[in-house]
């Protein structure tokens, strides 16, 4: 499955990058700097999407004690944290030429920063508790409490006045972005989702092997190699 996913991701990335960097016209206000959108927005979407994946699979692990759900939950955390970091860094690199500042303490940026701290808190808490199962339960509760932050991030640009622009795609009305700019953006978003699947599978495999040391199925695999 991994080679297929990798091929799919590379194809989507190639198409999305070509469409975004070459085919899409320059923005009439922002010139070529808007092209940062093709990493910034998918990364920001992923930072929230992965958080929800982490919280939901954490809840599943908490309620039904499914080991695999616990593993998916904790393995999502570092990937989500890296996307949050990317969203913040690329946002900063976009903010400097457009807003004239790297950082501003407004609602969108601050709530995204809190998201990063939530991810780091989850990772730290998991590593601080010796027993994996107990750690997973503690982490799931923390992740679920942190879900409050997700709608805050999304609506922050509407609830508070902000330097950050309002939603242009994720709203009920027609997206206010030209189709030639929109398509590469959506392709990049799908490519990032496939990337998440790949990174998640790789991490889960390690976590599973680590947890199941001494299990018979693992021994049999090791014997074959």
């Amino acid at each position, binding site marked *: 499955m991994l080679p297929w996913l990798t091929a799919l991701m590379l194809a989507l990335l190639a198409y999305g990058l070509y469409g975004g960097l*070459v085919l899409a016209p320059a923005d009439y206000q922002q*010139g*070529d700097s808007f092209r940062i959108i093709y990493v910034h927005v998918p990364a920001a979407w992923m930072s929230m999407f992965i958080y929800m994946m982490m919280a939901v699979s954490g809840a599943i692990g908490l309620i039904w004690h499914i080991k695999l759900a616990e593993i998916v939950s904790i393995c999502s955390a570092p990937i989500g944290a890296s996307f949050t*970091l*990317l969203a913040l860094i*690329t946002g900063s690199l976009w903010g400097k030429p457009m807003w004239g500042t790297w950082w501003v303490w407004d609602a969108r940026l601050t709530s995204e920063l809190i998201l990063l701290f939530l991810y780091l808190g989850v990772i730290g808490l998991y590593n601080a508790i010796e027993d994996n199962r107990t750690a997973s339960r503690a982490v799931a509760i923390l992740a679920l409490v942190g879900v409050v932050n997700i709608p805050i991030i999304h609506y922050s640009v509407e609830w508070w006045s902000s330097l950050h622009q309002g939603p242009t795609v994720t709203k009920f009305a027609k997206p206010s972005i030209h189709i030639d700019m929109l398509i590469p953006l959506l392709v990049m978003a799908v490519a990032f989702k496939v*990337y998440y699947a790949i990174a998640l599978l790789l991490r889960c*495999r390690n976590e599973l092997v680590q947890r199941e*040391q001494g299990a018979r199925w693992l021994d049999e695999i090791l014997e074959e*190699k």
Partner: protein
Amino acid sequence: MSEFLHMGGYAFYVWTSYGIATLVMAFGVVKPLLQHTQLLRQLQLKRKRGLR
């Protein structure tokens, strides 16, 4: 081509964004792959010790 690299004067911001994104995302798959090899090697060693 050079016009493309110039990015209408925003080259630094655009390419730094893409560069950092590439680095971070590459790290996110390379690290677990390395860990995997290391983990399997450790377990093989352990298993061989156990068999003896």
